[in-house]
């Protein structure tokens, strides 16, 4: 998302250019009028921005500061909180559950990111031809994006139910697995089912972003490469891919940030099991803060997660800046 801020700045036009009143003494009253007009506009500007800003302050900036303070305290839901410095952070460092959850989240991210990327790129190349039929298919591939993770998770939970679910039934008929096998009984197969759901739900989004990147590349460039004797793959690899870099950075950050925040799908489809094998970082924060009501420790884990996410955003900006210079 941070791409925006970088681009917005460039497109800004100074508001005062061309508006300055004449500076001869003869038009002094006019200037005063212009001055009060500008003043009024500024006051009005503050007034129209204020409501949104106040809401964001109360429900974002205040919680953000409170989170940092909470993370330095032993903060139960009821009763007094006590300042303990960086105690929560040292605890997190030695906490095996948190380490497992972090490791699993990284594993999940490492699995979904390439899968989503390949699926999204494949779909984008498929619907790239801009015909009516291509736009029709594009709408279909994008459709699951507007479905929530919760609804999608319940849908796939049914699809993959042992015995009862159509997918397990299909696997049985194809002799891929026996009818009685439960795909949620091992962390690995459960992870694969969740990944299938996420791919179904998110690939369309990646497709759309990549498609817009592809469409911004002039067709002539690729044609020129083809005329020079490059084959389809070579022109893709050496002409399209380098020009696609800003979009690639955006798409990767989208899926990395999304995967690092995974919760709904695991809460619903695996409940963190089997034997806590699919607990993600956000899931662990949820359990710490809202099952054990250890809010201070939960806040410190949130802070750690926030730092990682901010680093991902910063990395994105860095990647984009580099590609702008090339």
């Amino acid at each position, binding site marked *: 998302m*941070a*791409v*925006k*801020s970088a681009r917005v700045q460039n*497109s800004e036009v100074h*508001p005062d250019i061309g508006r300055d009143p004449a500076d001869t003494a003869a038009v002094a009253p006019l200037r005063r009028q212009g001055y009060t007009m500008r003043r009024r*506009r*500024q*006051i*009005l*500007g503050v007034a129209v*921005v204020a409501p*949104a800003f106040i*809401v*964001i302050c*109360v*429900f*974002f900036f205040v*919680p*953000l500061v*409170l*989170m940092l303070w909470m993370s330095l305290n032993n903060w139960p839901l009821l009763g007094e909180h006590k300042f303990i410095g960086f105690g929560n952070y040292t605890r997190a460092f030695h906490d095996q559950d948190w380490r497992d959850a972090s490791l699993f989240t990284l594993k999940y991210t490492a699995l979904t990111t390439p899968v989503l990327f390949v699926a999204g790129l494949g779909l984008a190349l*498929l619907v790239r*031809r801009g015909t009516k*039929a*291509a736009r029709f*298919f594009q709408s*279909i*591939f994008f*459709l*699951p994006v*507007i*479905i*929530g*993770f*919760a*609804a999608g998770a*319940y*849908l796939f939970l*049914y699809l993959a139910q042992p*015995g*009862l679910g159509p997918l397990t*039934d299909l696997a*049985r008929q194809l002799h891929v697995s026996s*009818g009685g096998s439960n795909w949620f009984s091992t962390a690995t197969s459960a992870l694969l089912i969740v990944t299938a759901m996420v791919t179904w739900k998110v690939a*369309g989004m990646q497709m759309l972003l990549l498609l817009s990147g592809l469409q911004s590349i002039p067709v002539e460039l690729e044609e020129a490469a083809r005329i020079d004797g490059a084959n389809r793959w070579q022109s893709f690899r050496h002409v399209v891919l380098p020009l696609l870099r800003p979009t690639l950075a955006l798409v990767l950050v989208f899926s990395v940030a999304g995967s690092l*925040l995974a*919760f*709904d799908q695991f*809460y*619903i489809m695996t409940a963190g099991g089997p034997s806590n094998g699919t607990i993600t970082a*956000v899931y662990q924060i949820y359990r710490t*803060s809202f099952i054990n009501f250890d*809010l201070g420790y939960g806040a410190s884990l*949130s*802070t750690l997660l*926030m730092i990682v*996410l*901010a680093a991902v*955003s910063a990395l994105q900006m860095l990647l984009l800046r580099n590609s702008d210079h090339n």
Partner: protein
Amino acid sequence: MSHLSAIRRSLPTGAWWTASTCLAVLFLYPLYVMVSQSLKKPSEAAQVPPTMFPHGLSIQNYRTLSHTGSVSFLQHVTNSVVVAVGATLATVLLATLAGYGFSKLRFPGSNVVFFAILATFMIPFQAIITPLYSILHTLGLQNTLLGLALVYTTFQLPFGIFLMRNSFAALPDSLEEAALIDGCGILKAMYRVLLPVAVPGLITTALFTFFTCWNEFFAALILLTDESKFTLPVTLNILAANSLGGLNWGVMQAGVAVTVIPCVILYLLLQRYYVNGLLSGAVK
């Protein structure tokens, strides 16, 4: 020879159609299962192995759904509508005002405020849910639909403000000046002249907010504790939990269908705005 080259030419098109159709079937299949499963008779919905096509259609699952749980299902639908529509209206109103301010009524420091708001993109609300819970508690808004709607509004505002600011910035100043010369006040000029032109941005903002709030699960799960307040995604959770003895997948899929279908209809009607807004927001 010419016959052969005709085949060669049509082969990629044929392959394209085959691949696209197969993938489309793959993408639509889960939705088909959702609808067909919810319309099966309860006995057929529980059948092992499952049937591909319902042998007879029945709305029994939807009937059962409407009185599962301690509160009527309609109450949950109402909760979802109230939260999603409320947050959407609030976001659109606040984002339009602020977007107008940031693009046309600059004041000293307005850029700093704008970038502070944009910076909130970097921190998702999952990360600050713990203190958010405490603050809602302090304000007496814990376990209320108003509190949840305000939280959703907060996290949709940055994107909305960004979109609306761009919509207004794309309009020439002369348009507004003409309205001012005609004797309109600044706000009237905005309402009469600029707003109609900014409608596409407005629809995009509204759609985004609505979809996100309608589907949101994590915050609703944490911030709402009373079953009568639950929104649809959390309600699906109790549908599954209530019937742990014999999980009724027909009723479950009926619940999923009620959650999904409004979004699908909105998407089919307004996808142009949704997709364009997404691209202008994400890529620009």
